[in-house]
């Protein structure tokens, strides 16, 4: 029976100091019992002789210095996992909130996970068809990848994420898949949108939801992504499922992290976020992937909203340095009515090169993709010039590029949230657009490929 301490000395924000403790370990889980019998959880952040600094996972409201008791549990925070979690809804700490029964666990897993041995990773290279041209054709997603969506307030990232969850498939394979959805500080409406979308597509039976809404305590969010990924790891690496994890919104998570750091009076890094935020985010994102000798996989799509649409803000910036690419939504395209408003030029999928080509998508994919990027970039430049100087100032070839850029946006990128395009269709639309340009301009494509695809009617 662990000892109970009545020695809470300080409560400030999400932090609490307990003194005169014995045999307490770093990162240990503890339980606070309030005078009214309510129990809340916290973990040890620092232990200095007999003083333990603990971080609350729940609100500090109602904690009474003289009447509350703290009990250290001798283990770190664990999530009870089971295959019965599918189709259930949990709070941000993994307690059921859908009115259903408690989970009877098959196992208990440490929510912090353990780093994957880089030598044990299996390189992700299985093409996932999302049915969205801007992703499949140009920023291809592969199984085991971590590909965030960089959005901003007022942009339709939820629709895009729901579309991916609905349509994503590895072709020619009939495998067990599951969706793990983690909501961090989002509104009820947004969470509801996802639930409805999963219900409509029938995916809800294969979905586990962890929901921390805007009204819930911010510090609970620090555990939410870890809880969700622990569940995903169980499904993927113990039960062999292919798990798609969607997390929204990482910005709220990072703000909670900043809150704890500020309460600890740590030296702040950029914009007040702690210096270890890179490591912290990496510990979350790097849990995606594939492992040698295991069937399942974790594909991670975190969504974050860029404050002031600024890609260099620390949250998108550090995320971009860790993840394997990013899908960036653009307000300009959104205003033009392009759906989904994916800005393909700054978007990127780092793992696409090994996931496309003959045998995976089609032989012409890589070359035509590079050419589309280059042509769209030049088309956009031409259009900019046109705005300043008028159309007459453009050379004939630049006029073609400008036309290409317009049609690229309206036909290739803008497809609506319901269209599910097979990869062949995406590639064929690409060639149709490239035919706007004379063959001599297509220097990034080899002759044989042009003969085969450019010349056909």
């Amino acid at each position: 029976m662990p000892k109970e301490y009545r020695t809470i000395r300080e409560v400030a924000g999400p932090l609490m100091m307990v003194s005169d403790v014995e045999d307490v370990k770093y990162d240990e889980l503890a339980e606070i019992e309030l005078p009214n019998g309510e129990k809340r959880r916290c973990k040890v952040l620092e232990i200095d002789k007999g003083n333990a600094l603990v971080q609350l996972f729940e609100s500090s409201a109602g904690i009474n210095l003289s009447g509350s008791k703290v009990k250290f549990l001798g283990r770190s925070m664990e999530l009870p996992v089971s295959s019965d979690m599918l189709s259930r809804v949990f709070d941000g700490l993994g307690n059921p909130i859908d009115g259903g029964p408690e989970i009877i666990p098959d196992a208990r897993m440490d929510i912090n996970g353990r780093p994957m041995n880089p030598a044990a990773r299996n390189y992700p290279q299985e093409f996932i068809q999302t049915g969205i041209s801007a992703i499949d054709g140009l920023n291809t997603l592969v199984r085991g990848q971590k590909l965030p969506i960089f959005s901003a307030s007022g942009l339709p990232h939820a629709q895009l994420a729901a579309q991916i969850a609905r349509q994503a498939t590895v072709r020619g394979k009939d495998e067990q898949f599951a969706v793990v959805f983690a909501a961090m500080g989002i509104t009820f409406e947004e969470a509801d949108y996802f639930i409805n979308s999963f219900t409509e597509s029938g995916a809800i039976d294969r979905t586990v939801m962890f929901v921390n809404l805007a009204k819930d305590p911010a510090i609970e969010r620090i555990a939410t992504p870890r809880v969700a990924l622990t569940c995903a790891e169980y499904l993927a690496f113990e039960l062999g499922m292919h798990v798609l994890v969607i997390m929204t919104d990482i910005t709220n998570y990072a703000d909670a992290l900043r809150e704890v750091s500020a309460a600890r009076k740590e030296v702040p890094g950029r914009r007040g976020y702690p210096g270890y935020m890179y490591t912290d985010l990496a510990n979350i994102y790097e849990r995606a992937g594939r492992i040698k000798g295991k069937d399942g996989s974790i594909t991670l799509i975190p969504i974050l909203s860029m404050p002031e649409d600024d890609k260099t803000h620390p949250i998108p910036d550090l995320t971009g340095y860790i993840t394997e690419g990013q899908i960036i939504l653009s307000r300009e395209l959104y205003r033009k009515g392009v759906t989904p408003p994916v800005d393909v030029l700054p978007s990127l999928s780092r793992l696409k090169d090994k996931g496309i080509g003959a045998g995976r998508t089609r032989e012409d994919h890589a070359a035509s993709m590079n050419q589309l990027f280059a042509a769209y970039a030049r088309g956009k430049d031409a259009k900019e010039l046109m705005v300043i100087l008028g159309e007459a100032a453009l050379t004939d070839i630049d006029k073609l590029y400008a036309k290409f850029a317009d049609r690229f946006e309206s036909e290739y990128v803008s497809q609506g949230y319901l269209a599910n395009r097979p990869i062949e269709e995406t590639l064929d639309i690409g060639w149709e657009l490239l035919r706007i340009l004379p063959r001599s301009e297509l220097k990034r494509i080899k002759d044989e490929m042009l003969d085969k695809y450019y010349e056909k009617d």
Partner: protein
Amino acid sequence: MNQGIITKVAGPLVIAEGMREANMYDVVRVSDKNLIGEIIEMHEDRASIQVYEETAGLGPGEKVVSTGKPLSVELGPGLIGSIYDGIQRPLEEIMKQTGSLLQRGIEVPALNRDKKWNFEPTVSVGDKVTGGDAVGIVKETAAVTHKILVPAGIEGTVKEIKAGEHTVEDAVAVIETEGGEKEVKLFQSWPVRISRPYKKKLSPDVLLTTGQRVIDTLFPIAKGGVAAVPGPFGSGKTVVQHQLAKWAAADIIVYIGCGERGNEMTDVLNEFPELKDPRTGNSLMERTVLIANTSDMPVAAREASIYTGITIAEYFRDMGYTVALMADSTSRWAEALREMSGRLEEMPGEEGYPAYLGSRLAQFYERAGRVIVNGTEDTEGALSVIGAVSPPGGDISEPVSQATLRIVKVFWGLDAGLAYKRHFPAINWLTSYSLYSDQLELWFSKEVAEDWSSYRIKLMSLLQDEAELQEIVNLVGMDALSAPDRIKLEAARSVREDYLHQNAFDDTDTYTSLHKQYLMIKAILTYFDLATEALNEGAPINELLSLPVRERIGRFKYCAEDSADREYEAIVLQLKSEISAAQKGGED
């Protein structure tokens, strides 16, 4: 041996009492879990220890034992082809023992103790040897002959030498010195924070060929040189680093993945064994050592990974090899330094980085160089260091980039704008520089072509002029340009698209020999010269701009190395006939 007691645990920092006898930078074992740590500060008998493994579950009252030795690496046969963590534990061996997730407190020797290597002596009994001399060789891989060196500080006569099959721990030679007999084993250890000694540094005036056109031609790096690749995310830092690791003309590559993605290391592990070294035909993995501290691995070991890597690199340099070290990314290393500094409650310098950031970076890069290595004979070895920098928001005014730029001689500035256009490598030709290009001029004129540097200067000024002309175009439109300027603009576009742009994922384009680079430049500049000349003689500009041969010049990069000469001749021939046709058209 000194034993103390933990009093405080805060993340990777542990403070222990009763450590008066321990030395600064001693390696310690923490708690019964046997975690590895290093003493980084002493206050009376309290030692601050950075622990290289996850500290969850540690608490006050547990023991800390000093090993009395600084953090060291094992140097000997078995390094090549291995993947190590930040403190040189073999990750593949660990995977065999504990599965796919990392566990704490694992003790696996860096070099396999059971494997036998065939040792062939190169000295005989009675020979005089000194530190740095080879007593023999082990053929480690098809590509690497591992020389067994006499450890530094030993000097004397060979008393015994044993050819044949040995494990790394076997003594293969005994040397009679003034201080008694010393054994030479197949392996030796060396503390990572101390640079290995050499006789003399030389000036870097030999090119380290990389096969990357924008690098070799415009911003070359010398053997023994130091370069930095800063750039925002998505600008292709890692691809540049991988390309250099694949194609740089080095005997040994040490690749440090410092705080980066796990899948990138997997990529190297999968891809390198399949790739062939263009010079030797051997698999690239047979010359590569990997150090991986991925971003989810403990942060303190990230700080050590850089030193582990460069010590291994120095060891191969001491055998007289050309070694290239890639560190991706030094920013993560600096952040690890910052995190520990914050936990030690040191007064922060700029942006929270410790005040000693600049000097630590300088010490690291200064370990590079072309040197005369220790030993009786004057053998040359070189160690080049290429560090990626990941500035927040891509803004290089931040402390890590600035401290790096004060040291390095080559700056390959990656540009997000180029990356968005999928112009790779996205090295900005206007902001990048190489301080070696003058020193290397002689080398180029001897090894490649007499007139190399004149072409290089022409190429560079074409790009410079383009930037200026482009500004005019953006303001007043293409029509405002004179015809010669339009030709110039088109030639510069050709330089960018047909020459500087290089596709790392195309089998032919990924590597270009210097000779082919020379031909490619000549082809483009010949077009420029002939077209300008023809224009002056009245040829119509539109025809000159749309000569069919230009498409052929654009495809020259996909032409195989062995037919490059023929293709060049053909291009020049076609060019001349089309230009003269255009001239005739103009006269009619």
